[in-house]
């Protein structure tokens, strides 16, 4: 026993009893709330907490881009240089968007399948997600090559390519993560300690989709 051990119950000096409040929430939410200490062994919980924190931080890079875009656009009277139509929400782009957004549903279903130990169903849905992601990337490539402006075409070009490119990099990262998780799912002992990797990839994929919704509204609909 260490010196710091005692039979007396330890009291929380905080004005409110955080631990009791915490226990009122459902289990999945509790992992995001501060505990009274002693939760070392929850690997999935700490992993998801850390990853969520990271994504929130990452979203601020995007927000700094969004704000830059908005500020530039509001202060520039002739946003589109002569002869340039700017990005337009064509049917092609709309289909691309719908595919990406619906892949969020698919990946959620896949994760649920895994939690219920339906491994083959999980693999199928998971593969479908990454195919949808890949489709989106190819679609973006086609969209880029069809536009009548480039990176150096004024502010509209610079912001469009930097914003969509930075988002595209995240989609690439998401697809790579999905492929890794798919390969690892064939390892017999992979899920002995929970499926943090799959949950994190799912969360990441939702993040990429939410960013796309904002990006799409700013670039195509404004």
């Amino acid at each position: 026993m260490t010196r710091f051990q005692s039979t007396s119950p330890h009291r929380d000096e905080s004005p409110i009893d955080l631990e009791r409040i915490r226990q009122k929430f459902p289990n999945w939410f509790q992992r995001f709330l501060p505990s009274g200490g002693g939760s070392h062994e929850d690997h999935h919980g700490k992993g998801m907490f850390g990853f969520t924190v990271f994504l929130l931080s990452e979203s601020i890079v995007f927000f700094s881009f969004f704000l830059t875009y908005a500020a530039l656009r509001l202060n520039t009277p002739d946003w589109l240089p002569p002869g340039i139509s700017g990005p337009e929400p064509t049917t092609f782009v709309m289909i691309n968007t719908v595919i990406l957004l619906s892949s969020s549903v698919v990946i959620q279903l896949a994760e649920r399948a895994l939690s219920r130990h339906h491994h083959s169903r999980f693999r199928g849905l998971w593969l479908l997600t990454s195919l949808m992601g890949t489709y989106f990337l190819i679609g973006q490539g086609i969209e880029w090559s069809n536009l009548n402006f480039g990176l150096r075409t004024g502010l509209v070009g610079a912001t469009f390519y930097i914003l969509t490119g930075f988002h595209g990099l995240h989609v690439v990262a998401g697809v790579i993560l999905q492929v890794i998780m798919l390969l690892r799912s064939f390892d017999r002992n992979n899920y002995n300690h929970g499926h943090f990797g799959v949950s994190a990839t799912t969360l990441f994929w939702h993040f990429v989709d939410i960013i796309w919704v904002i990006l799409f509204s700013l670039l195509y609909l404004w």
Partner: protein
Amino acid sequence: MPQLLEYILLTVFIAGLIFVSHWLGQQAYTWMPAQATAEAQRVDDLFSFLVAIGAFILLGLVGMMLYSVLFFRAKPDDYSEGHPARGSAKLEILWTVAPVLLVAWIAFQNINIYEQLNILGLQQIVQLPFGMAPATAAIAPPQQSPETAQTTPKPAAETVQVIAKQWNWLFRYPNGVTAQELHLPVNESTRLDLKAEDVLHGFYIPEFRLRQDAVPGRNIALVVTPIREGKYRLQDAEFSGTYFALMQADVYVESRPAYEQWLTTVAQQPQAFRNTATLEQQHPPQTLFKTSWYPGSSDPASIAASFADSFKPKDDRS
């Protein structure tokens, strides 16, 4: 009566603090350069106020620390507790509320003085990028914008264009004269239209207590009212590249007749253009460490030519 003694000591300490900080506040005026504008007096008043308050807090707390060091020393092996207080709700609330009131007071004083300065006169609508054709720049006339209504500069007798360009200051006067010296009539308001040609520059004359950046593509106006004749130095105060330190100009505040006299003289006999950066390039000072990191296009002739360009009369951009 040790208790009474403590209170007396405390009173003496605070009285001493008030005296010393008041004295420092008065001294603060002498730490500043000469007051060449009406605004300078107000800024110095604010500074004096800040010094007095700051000195009171600094000397008070450091005094307590020094007192502790002198009188609350432990014997070398005495690791027992000093005193058991872990906090005091009253004290803690007091020293949260007191700073709130104090900074509110300081902020109020500052904003009050800032209102009187009214130096900004920044026309926010003038974000007119260089490459833009006037036809496409659908800019509302200044008087129609509510925002400008508030920030319209004070009325001014004269308007001088200040052009900042690596690494020279140029001044264009109402009669079309361009010179490298800034001349201002004393006791009159002069409006300075700051323009930067290439990068950010900072318009700063210490005796005027006013500093404002010039931003390429924006027109920024600054109204100054010098009240003291003399020669001052304008220094670029926003880092602008290799020869940043050399980007200075002489400022003369003089009587109206002398000012008119100078304008007519220069109109007849333009001053020779002098580029300190180019001069230093031709005769680099001897330094222990030398590099070859000077920016490109250092051909002195071409730089001089581009500056000479600025001397030709041009239409006002605004």
